[in-house]
């Protein structure tokens, strides 16, 4: 009797174990991918009625709510998540679980990173749907600013709609500039010279920050440093010790050394507390105006102004970097493609959200013109806002790619601890090069040095 009980228990355990040993990626469900014979460039899932599942971050919750208000007859299921902020990879993690489960994908999703296209458009079971293969019309797609859809594009196929741009401009405190009698720089050389002057004449004031992960996107990207040139779906060229990278690094080192460039994180509690009222100038993205100066630093009304993006003296026109900017994606697993298509088209272009509610500079050009006028009319900014920001929108350097891994994370992990330990960015460039190469190889990229 005892023997039989033991046998039964053993057999049950063995059965459970065998059941668990099925091949992990067994084809338990049909893969809704492939492009043969499809009007959209992929084979859509079977279309059904039901709620449209939308994932947004907390900031873009307003977009989903605005859509709901404008379309009361559409059934929405709005889920807020972190939007992949700071390289959290939440979407990727969830999608990979949904892929294994064969269900659960959101119909529409918003992300704040620029890496989604590189992983979500690839493979047999790709997540995002191509938009320019019949799903969205050319009129909608051509309305976005020049280069705005670069982060959405892989091999000529557009996979997302850009929500807002993050072109870098030169933010400055006009009141302080007038008080100190300084002239606004137009080149990085003049910027550095002014930094040295500020260090001598007004110690404590800062003209930039290098303590955050987006420093490379401001200074290296803007300096056309070829550390991140994605040349194919799985190919990247990394030349982080190029002379163009070295000169940007030297400038940062000089300004960090004389303390006019802060090493504190812009969004950390200490920056606002100790340096919030000491910001003379800050090269940074268009969204700094609202999020950093108005929000975090509480810069008083009428003091903040914006200048043209800086250029190196051998560049004929400014070349800027791009710090973030969100994107809307549509799942090719969606069983409600028409509703999903309508949703992303509306949130990315409609004035009711992009002009009235969006905190960032709209990527959709007609909305951008109205948005910037609205900001200008608010009376918060000193001087002309539209000119420099609109000009910079078309000056983002296209040589900096969006690979599957986060360049911000590589910089944060490699360069910032080195700087904190007293090393110069220039001396850390070889380490940065190696770190990018290693990270690229982990994701199967062919690396060219």
């Amino acid at each position, binding site marked *: 009797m005892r023997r039989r009980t033991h046998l039964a228990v053993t057999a049950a355990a063995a059965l*459970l174990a065998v059941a668990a040993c099925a*091949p992990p990626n067994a084809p338990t469900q049909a893969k809704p991918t492939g492009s043969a014979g499809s009007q959209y460039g992929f084979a859509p899932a079977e279309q059904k009625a039901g709620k449209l599942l939308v994932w947004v971050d907390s900031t873009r919750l307003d977009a989903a709510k605005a859509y709901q208000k404008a379309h009361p007859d559409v059934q929405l299921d709005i889920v807020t998540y972190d939007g992949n902020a700071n*390289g959290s990879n939440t979407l990727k993690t969830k999608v990979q679980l949904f892929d294994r489960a064969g269900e659960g994908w959101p119909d529409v999703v918003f992300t704040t990173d620029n890496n989604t296209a590189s992983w979500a458009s690839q493979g047999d079971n790709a997540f995002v749907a191509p938009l320019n293969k019949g799903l969205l019309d050319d009129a909608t797609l051509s309305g976005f600013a020049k280069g705005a859809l670069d982060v959405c594009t892989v091999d000529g196929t557009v996979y997302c709609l850009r929500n807002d741009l993050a072109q870098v401009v030169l933010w400055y405190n006009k009141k302080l500039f007038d008080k100190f009698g300084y002239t606004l720089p137009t080149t990085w050389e003049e910027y550095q010279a002014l930094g040295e002057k500020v260090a001598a004449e007004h110690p404590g004031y800062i003209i930039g920050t290098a303590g955050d992960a987006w420093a490379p996107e401001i200074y290296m990207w803007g300096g056309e440093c070829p550390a991140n040139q994605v040349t194919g779906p799985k190919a990247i060229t990394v030349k982080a010790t190029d002379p163009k990278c070295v000169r940007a690094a030297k400038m940062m080192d000089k300004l960090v050394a004389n303390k006019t460039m802060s090493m504190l994180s812009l969004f950390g509690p200490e920056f606002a507390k100790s340096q919030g009222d000491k910001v003379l100038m800050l090269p940074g993205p268009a969204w700094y105006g609202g999020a950093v100066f108005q929000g975090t630093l509480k810069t008083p009304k009428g003091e903040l102004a914006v200048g043209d993006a800086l250029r190196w003296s051998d560049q004929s026109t400014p070349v800027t970097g791009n710090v973030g900017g969100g994107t809307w994606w549509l799942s090719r697993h969606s069983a409600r493609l028409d509703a999903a298509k309508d949703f992303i088209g509306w949130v990315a272009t409609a004035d009711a959200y992009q002009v009235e509610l969006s905190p960032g500079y709209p990527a959709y050009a007609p909305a951008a013109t109205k948005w910037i006028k609205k900001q200008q009319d608010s009376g918060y900014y000193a001087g002309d806002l539209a000119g420099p920001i609109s000009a910079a929108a078309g000056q983002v350097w296209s040589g900096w790619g969006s690979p599957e891994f986060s360049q911000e994370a590589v910089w*944060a992990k490699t360069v910032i*601890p080195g700087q904190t330990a007293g090393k110069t960015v220039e001396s850390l460039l070889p380490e940065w090069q190696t770190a990018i190469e290693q990270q690229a190889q982990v994701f199967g990229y062919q690396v060219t040095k």
Partner: protein
Amino acid sequence: MTGSRLRLSAGHVFVSGYVVLLVAFGIVPTVYALNLAFTDARGVFTGFDNFVRTAQDFRFLAAVEHVATYLVLWLVTLTVLVLLLALLVHRLTAGWSRAALRFVYYVPGALAGASSVLLWLFMLDPSVSPVDDLVRALWGETFVQVISPGHLPWIFTLIAFWTGAGGWIVVMYGALNTIPHQIMEAARVDGAGPVKIALRVQLPMLRKWIVYMLILSLAAGTQLFVEPQLVSQASFGVVGNDYSINQLAYLYAFNQNDFNGSAAIAVDLLIVALCCAGLFVARGGLFDTD
């Protein structure tokens, strides 16, 4: 005969719940992980390929080094301090002070897991810490300086000690109470002082409890994940999200969509943990019968 069969059945009933849970959440996942570790994404047997590939990953050895350093620090400080504090509490004569201290030791354990790490993130940020002077003096002026790579094993040890050690002090205190009074009395009569009694009588008699503590703490320590993951988020990535072996396994599964590589790392961890636990059991005589 009937009585013994009855006792046997009652015993079976008592352990059956444990056995079911062990099979469902221990054995089956382990077999599943072993299967994944020796196959590729299509389920084809690949031998040790996944183990070789993951061990050659540039992050692997670094993660092993991080976890090993942390484990050495954590296990040594845990053992020394827990025993020292338990012996001290045990020597206190006043009953109320013993009870109060046992309570104080136990309280931090109530704030476990992620919430404890979040609390420590505030404690360690000099701009908001209530003990900012101490943090500045020990580790640096800014949060990024505080969490520099060299400080992390100490910081994680501190967090783990804060949340885990109190419970062990209470356990060791209980174990000290089980030492027969006559033995202690005999040692005193023979002229042994408190230090000699502790070293020659109490600690040898606590050996099994110490091994038990070490095995459980080792198992928890090799699973280091929440602490570096939250520090990574709070530092905007200055501490990488690949600091520990568990984080690396997580990245393989959910960042690289490589569940086979992830399983290989998990199996590596299992083997190391089993070997270390086996060594502790053998050396500590945990299963010896008196």
